[in-house]
């Protein structure tokens, strides 16, 4: 149990970065302004890089010969452990920005915790990722402010995106047995502890963006345990098609 908890714990971070990177890379060549094609590609590249470190480590912990690609391309949706938030569709630029902001802000807190992990590999991956995340957060937060405090239309769009995505934020702060092992063994943190600092930052940014923080609502959950929204299956079908259709091939 303890080993499998650690593997699943590492997969949660790896799958979160992987699924969000996969979502973001679909924007490249279609962004609202060319500078954003460059920026979204950067964030996506960073997240793929983080995913590769996490998945490689998960594969090593498992010791069954699965490398990053085996884990990325040959698992089904039920075996993915990312939070639901990151698999939500790209929608328009407001949806993508809000999803990114909620994740980036959470990741900034989570990676700071993990940087002090007793597991040296986890700590090292978190320390490297944290530097990248600081840029991602700065960019997504700037866009929240610009869109919220931009035109009537941008304000309306970002408000709708916040209302739509809010119910996927709660899962970031709900612990389970795996988290309990992570805390007990000193390689992870208690997700609940990040909720208040996260909310405090959201309130401050939203105030600057002239946006309202939504009222309490039922929070969707299940991604960490492998019970996803229907969207993840399509994302994986597209991402995995080649290695799945030619399992013998090396690319």
């Amino acid at each position, binding site marked *: 149990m303890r080993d499998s908890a650690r593997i699943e714990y590492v997969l949660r971070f790896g799958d979160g970065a992987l699924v969000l990177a996969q979502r973001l890379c679909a924007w490249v060549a*279609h962004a609202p302004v060319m500078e954003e094609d*460059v920026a979204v590609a950067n964030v996506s*590249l960073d997240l*793929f*890089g983080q995913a590769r470190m996490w998945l490689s480590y998960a594969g090593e912990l498992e010791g069954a010969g699965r490398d990053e*690609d085996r884990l990325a391309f040959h698992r089904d949706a039920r075996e993915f452990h990312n939070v639901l938030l990151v698999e939500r569709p790209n929608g328009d630029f407001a949806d993508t920005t809000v999803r990114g902001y909620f994740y980036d802000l959470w990741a900034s807190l989570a990676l700071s915790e993990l940087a002090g992990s007793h597991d040296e590999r986890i700590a090292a991956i978190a320390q490297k990722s944290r530097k990248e995340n600081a840029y991602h957060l700065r960019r997504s937060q700037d866009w929240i402010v*610009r869109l919220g405090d931009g035109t009537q*239309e941008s304000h309306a769009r970002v408000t709708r995106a916040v209302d739509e995505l809010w119910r996927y934020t709660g899962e970031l702060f709900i612990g389970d047995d795996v988290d309990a092992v992570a805390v007990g063994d000193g390689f992870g943190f208690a997700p609940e502890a990040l909720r208040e600092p996260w909310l405090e930052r959201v309130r401050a940014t939203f105030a600057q963006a002239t946006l309202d923080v939504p009222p309490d609502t039922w929070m969707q959950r299940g991604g960490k345990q492998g019970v996803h929204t229907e969207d993840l299956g399509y994302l994986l079908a597209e991402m995995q098609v080649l290695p799945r259709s030619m399992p013998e091939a090396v690319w």
Partner: protein
Amino acid sequence: MYTSISDGIEGAPDGGDARERAFDERLDRALKIEPPDWMPDAYRKTLTRQISQHAHSEIVGMLPEGNWITRAPSLQRKVILLAKVQDEAGHGLYLYGAAESLGTSRDELVLALLSGKAKYSSIFNYPTLTWADVGAIGWLVDGAAIINQIPITRCSYGPYARAMVRICKEESFHQRQGFDIMWTLAHGTAEQHAMAQDALDRWWWPSVMMFGPPDSESTHNVQSLRWKIKLFTNDELRTKFIDQTVPQAEQLGLAIPDPDLRWNDETKHYDIGPIDWDEFYRVIGGNGPCNKDRLQARVDAWEDGAWVREAAAEHARKHGSDAA
């Protein structure tokens, strides 16, 4: 990525006054023309068109390869492709910057593309149907780009020449990644080898056509050569590409789809079979397999993004800072 440079010359050369003699002298002494320098209107217009076509080609060129980013078959391949397409966006940005230095704004240039008035390289009007097409584009299309663009690093207009130095360095990485994909496929399973051959079959002739019409039909070569905007003719560059690429295909163990291809010991170049120029003009004329889709994708990005650009501008206006 790359553009096939249009030979179109705008208008006639200006009269022979002192400024023009000074301009000609700079050309003769191989000195660069810089944005504040006087230049003939026709030179300015021709360069604006050439550089902006090149920029449009980078931006439209993101689409065929972008088509495979979400489906790249390994994480390593995915990040390399993503970085490559990102480089193309960067190339587009430098080139629009170089074109703007001649006095036309990026928005004006982009709107000319979206309206269908401005051209981009016709090669991007072909579809990427398999993963091997990503390899073929890097190997052949970027290979052709390098041959076309290296001389432009020595062209007479300073900002264009300098932009091209950096672009060429990145293009050579792109070409190697394409060759590496082809190598892996050609030495992979039978199915992968067939995929690589099929990609070469479909991309070979369009790549050969990238250098533009034969010299015998290219009426504007002379002026562009005189202005040092163009340093070699279309046929010279095409021959160089073929001579370079045929041995690479042999290394890969792939067959070039030209039964007439053979080494000519007299000319010390390869002879090739007839090029289907009807196809070339058909695709340039708007009837390639993807012309409509490529342009529509750019129009959609522009229109769907309008509210974002307006919001950024409005926020900047309220807070007195730059938009982006």
